[in-house]
């Protein structure tokens, strides 16, 4: 489950993992965004030689998070599977069966192009365009629209921030971002890119390295 950092939001305890997931402690819900399973295979089918092993440890990393947090429920914030049906979906199905006691929900993302019956086959409840639970609205894409004063949690962006060192050195690191009304999760999947966001002064930002999750809000 990597190293963690704890933060409070709308009176709830959120544990941010360096493995790019949020564990909502009070409700025992694990939240993951943009896993992009099957993407490597999808690219290969189109003749783009991504190594097959790319993204292959996504399932193992999800297992590690389950072992670490023992969640009752997992919410995927979209782009769970990045392809039409391929063998990687069946591998996911086997993994799902191994964790059948956990409820799993998916908010549909723009790359989730599988037919709905594939999700019900593996006992995954599908929501479109969002899922509301407690003080939070979970969706794939961020939105400026406020839903009855609730806080919006989204993925889709694959957020990262640039950090500037003295001199010319700059780093780009994936991050969790929390604004006043909505927040973004980093992309969980290994075979995914990032997009630079520019946080405002009052925002909260936590970057992830392969070992740690670090609060950089004070550096703003």
């Amino acid at each position, binding site marked *: 489950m990597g190293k963690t950092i704890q933060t409070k939001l709308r009176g709830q305890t959120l544990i941010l993992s360096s493995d790019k997931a949020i564990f909502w402690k009070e409700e025992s819900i694990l939240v993951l965004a943009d896993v992009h399973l099957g993407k490597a*295979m*999808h*690219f*290969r*089918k*189109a*003749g*783009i*030689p*991504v*190594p*097959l*092993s*790319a993204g292959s440890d996504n399932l193992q990393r999800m297992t590690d998070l389950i072992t670490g947090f023992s969640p009752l429920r997992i919410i995927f914030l979209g782009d769970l599977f*990045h*392809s039409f049906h*391929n*063998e990687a979906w069946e591998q996911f199905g086997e993994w799902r069966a191994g964790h059948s006691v956990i409820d799993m929900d998916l908010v549909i993302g*723009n*790359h989730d*192009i599988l037919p709905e019956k594939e999700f019900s086959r593996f006992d995954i409840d599908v929501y479109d365009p969002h899922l509301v639970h407690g003080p939070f609205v979970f969706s794939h894409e961020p939105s400026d629209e406020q839903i009855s004063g609730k806080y919006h949690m989204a993925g889709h962006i694959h957020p990262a*921030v*640039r*950090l*500037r*060192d*003295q*001199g*010319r*050195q*700059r*780093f780009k*690191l994936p991050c969790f971002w929390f604004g006043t009304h909505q927040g973004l999760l980093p992309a969980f999947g*290994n*075979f*995914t*890119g990032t997009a630079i966001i*520019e*946080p*405002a*002064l009052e925002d909260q*930002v936590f*970057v992830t*390295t392969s*070992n*740690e999750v*670090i609060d*950089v809000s004070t*550096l*703003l």
Partner: protein
Amino acid sequence: MEAWQACLDGKSGIVNAPTGSGKTYSLFIPALLEAIREEKVTGKTPERGLRIIWITPIRALTKEIEASANRAIEGLGLNWRVEVRSGDTSTSRRAKQIRNPPELLITTPESLHLLLATKDYPKFFRHLRTMVVDEWHELLGSKRGVQVELGLSRLKSILPGLKIWGISATIGNMDEAVQVLMGDWQHSDKVKLIKSGIKKKIEVVSVLPDEIETLPWAGHLGIKMLEKVVPILKESESTLIFCNTRAQCEIWYQKLLEADPGLAGQMAMHHSSISRELRTWVEEALHEGKLKAVVCTSSLDLGVDFRPVGTIVQIGSPKGVARFIQRAGRSGHQPGALSKIYFVPTHSLELAEAAALREAIEKQEIEQRIPFVRSFDVLVQYLVTLAVSEGFYPDQVFKEVKSTFCYNSISEAEFEWCLNFIWTGGDSLAAYDEFRKVDVIGGMYRVTDKGVALRHRLSMGTIVSDQMMQIKYVSGRRIGNVEEWFITQLKPGDIFWFAGRSLELVRVREMTVQVRKSKSKTGKVPSWQGGRMPLSSELTAVLRAKFDQVVNGDLEDPELKKLLPLFELQEQRSILPSRGEFLIEYFKSKEGHHLLFYPFEGRFVHEGLGAILAYRISKLVPISFSIAMNDYGLELLSPNEIPIEKALEANLLSLENLSEDIRASVNAVEMARRRFRDIASISGLVFKGFPGREKKDRHLQSSSQLFFGVFSDFEPDNLLLLQAYDEAMNLQLEEGRLRLALKRINEQKIRLSYPGSATPFAFPIMVDRLRERLTSEKLEDRIRRMKLEVIKS
């Protein structure tokens, strides 16, 4: 004439001639004569079909070649057809050319490969006698040159009687240029290098400032010299003003207009971000003598001759001898005419460069063009190209590929890797894997999937451009392109200067920036990246000799004479090093401890050297540095005392362990990551999508960065990844040049000086804003004290 004979004798080779010396005819006439001779011998008209392919690197030149070819055909009374085939040629025209080929086809390296991606290409090429590669010196140092090599290897194999001729301006490695073009023919006696012997007369005139800044500063783009440039424009019918960067070009244009409002309507701007239509208009107006002046960048280095242009102005260092000669040659087109070029220094030390340039031209010390070797990205693309059209057998193609200069050292295992990359996708074929690109049918590699073939044809080529956004007026008229990152710095209502106009950003829609004209005089100027080329090693060598001249009291060059106060101050505060000496300066200021070295080897070498020296010193004591450099020297700046004497005793400048120290000190990963961007695109890893079909392909979009990470993690021996590291070491860091520089320094006497304050040599380096850092801290620790980049809201 020598070329005529050699060509008629069935030989191949290179004609070495400057631009505008009738070189087109030197090869085209004999090809026509050959056809006439054939007709006489056989008594019948030769079968119609493609006889000559003329490859040119620049589309703009095709028209001119077409016109001269047509004149020659008319002159000899032949009924040949001449056609152009390039990215601008319509699909229907191209199809017609395949069905009914012209005798002479003028095309580009990219279009040649597209022809090889066409079904039945052997039939199309079957009557081909002569292949001419124009401006070979331009192609040689690029991956487009590799494309030419590969294309020739295929054509040589299917057409045993083929003649190959290159046309090249003089470069420092003329013999190598022949070897690269000829491939395995290089040792054959049918290969000739024909020198025209025509030498253009060039006069270099420095525009001297009234007063010399003894502490030169590199930041003001030479604008101070503006009032001296205006009279030069007045004297000449038409003038080209060359700038090194597009930003400098925009600023000079703006300032010239302010200085002489009479130029409005008679002056234009030309750089590669301006729309094709606008550039064509400028070129035509120049041709017709309608323009008094054009402020331009390297975008006008090559291309058609503008006869009315009588004067050239170069703003700032041209960084190389060849580029300077090329630019000077854009004036004085009449045979035997003098080409006059004015050099405008942007800071005083650049004056010494003018003196060096004059001498280098006199002695013909011209840069080499280093050919690419082992470019697996281009090879992978080429193999798919062949698989898309006729299919190929690996044994045959391996032989052909190995016959080229670029792939001469490729091993069977490496070739096998490339085959697997396109067949199985690198991995061994797993049962459920659906990797599809190239199929192997009866030992033949073919593409059968229509989608794969289409995607390949659309993404062929070796020129990779940045993500660009179109700039348009709200009414829809195009103005040009600008890099995405510049636009992201602006918000609606902001004013910026582009193509000589003041524009207000209205809105951004997808990849289009909508603007309207603004009356505001102040605005941002896009500072495009990539304007920081290093001085060439040829130029730095002559420059070092010029400094030595000063030490010996030889001030014959007016520039050096003008610089005398600067040299005197240098000598007064520190040392003016002679040829046999290597100067190191060490002093303290409010900023910290400054350690300066002056190898005069160009920016890239100094960048690498700076990192190595910092690393070696930091092994002696715990210390952190920031490193700055320019073309003349480099600076290590530290908050702590730098143990320079101890470091020199410990062989700071030694050649020993150089490779290891480079690897330990230079951020090779970052450099390789940057090189990988082009490699990923050329090898077909990154697909940009079809025009108008974005929706369907969006699930295939990715970035080279992503692939770089994936390969580094999961396939570290991937040849494309290794190629990125090789390119970083050889092209970016110039490891070879760095080694030679250190060797030279080791033969010199080290003079360590302790000036009381910054010297004229040190000052321009110290104010340089680009700094690198060397440190061994953990990433996580660094993050904790770094700054986040934020939007100010």
